[in-house]
């Protein structure tokens, strides 16, 4: 067994340098690597390019790294709900590349699967298609899209083991598995780290081969962006 455990978030980021490209897991604030984002803020690395579906909110998630001006460019599908983001974007401090969510997911997956390029229908006939090759298959147009290339992937899982195997919970899975597969160095923080052999090998979402460093995170806030409820005793 190849042991992937590191002591903490700070050690997990060893080698992360200014100007690098990072993938950061999560959808909104769901399934984001809270400990790694905090450690990265302390580390102070700058001029980062972040591939992440969203950009966090003011004061949480990637919003923390926007506040500290560590991010030079965001590659995302949706970036609302963040005043500081908007300010930096409109002032030109922050570069933003918006791409369709499924294309974002598939470009991560392609990187982790050794597929340099693929074709997708998303964005045909829109400004997303500008500069891209369009090709017909069965008479329908598709765009050629390229695999991402990321120096680090920072992901968050529910459970993990010493061998780096990961299991996610609910919709906190989202982009984390593909980003885990895609990182040149993949760092995973988990809510619960267990010895090898404690996880069912049939139930692993990301095999440990994709994970270079793993540690158990602490003090998870797991903030909710849109708390929507129905009162008790309401019929379904």
């Amino acid at each position, binding site marked *: 067994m190849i042991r992937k455990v590191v002591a903490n978030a700070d050690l997990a980021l060893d080698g992360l340098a200014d100007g690098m490209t990072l993938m950061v897991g999560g959808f909104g604030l769901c399934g984001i690597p809270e400990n790694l984002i905090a450690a990265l803020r302390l580390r102070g690395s700058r001029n980062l390019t972040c591939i992440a579906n969203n950009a966090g909110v003011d004061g949480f998630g990637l919003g923390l790294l926007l506040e500290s001006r560590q991010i030079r460019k965001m590659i995302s*599908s949706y970036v609302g709900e963040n005043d500081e983001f908007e300010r930096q974007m409109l002032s030109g401090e922050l570069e933003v590349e918006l791409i*369709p969510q499924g294309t974002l997911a598939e470009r991560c997956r392609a990187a982790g699967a050794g597929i340099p390029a693929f074709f997708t229908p998303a964005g045909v006939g*829109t*400004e997303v298609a500008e500069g891209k090759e369009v090709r017909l298959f069965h008479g329908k147009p598709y765009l050629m899209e390229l695999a991402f290339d990321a120096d680090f992937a920072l992901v968050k899982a529910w459970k993990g083991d010493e061998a780096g195997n990961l299991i996610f919970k609910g919709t906190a899975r989202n982009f984390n598995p593909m980003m885990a597969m895609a990182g040149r160095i993949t760092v995973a923080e988990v809510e619960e780290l267990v010895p090898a052999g404690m996880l069912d090998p049939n139930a692993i979402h990301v095999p440990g081969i994709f994970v270079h460093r793993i540690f158990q995170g602490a003090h998870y806030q797991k903030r909710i962006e849109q708390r929507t409820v129905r009162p008790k005793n309401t019929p379904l």
Partner: protein
Amino acid sequence: MALDKNGIARRIAQELREGWYVNLGIGIPTLVANFVPEGFALEFQSENGILGMGPFPFEGEEDADLINAGKQTITSLPGASFFDSATSFGMIRARKVQLTVLGAMEVSDRGDIANWKIPGRMVKGMGGAMDLVASADNIIVAMQHSNREGESKLLSACTLPLTGVGCVKKVVTDLAVLEIDPQRGFILLERAPGVSIDEIIAKTGGRLIVEGDVPEMVL
């Protein structure tokens, strides 16, 4: 009388068929879930990674790890499954989702849709909308017939940057149900209760086809 948001959602719910997997966008589309008949064999997909999405949780039972694409807390029903975003958009592109309901800023009489960007204003991004409209066989747009300035959102050509080309099949607004035939334009199928054909004609940009008696919606 023009429909309110719930009225639009209620009318769209009539389009649902048993056996369908359905993706509902943010806004009015989300309300469609409230009008599904009990016991109806249908599952909701949310592109952030769930099939078998249930209603909002009871107070105190919210789970931060269980949200929909609008980032609202949700529940899961028996038979649900969770999956990653690549698998989620895989099933969307592979046309396993039978119906997508989306909001829009503009729809053209050829089925083009614009709903992600207003030049000069803060652009939040297209999220999953471009993937959804490029892949779905059956897209219904839920929106107001006119914008706040009173201009028609049903046009001969979209003026805003497109989300997708020739993909919308049907539009349900506060005034009407319209089918899109890319050759002919908007075909008026139904009027909202008490809304006249003349009003719809007056408020519709783009080609509008009115054939025979156009019935009122039955809600």
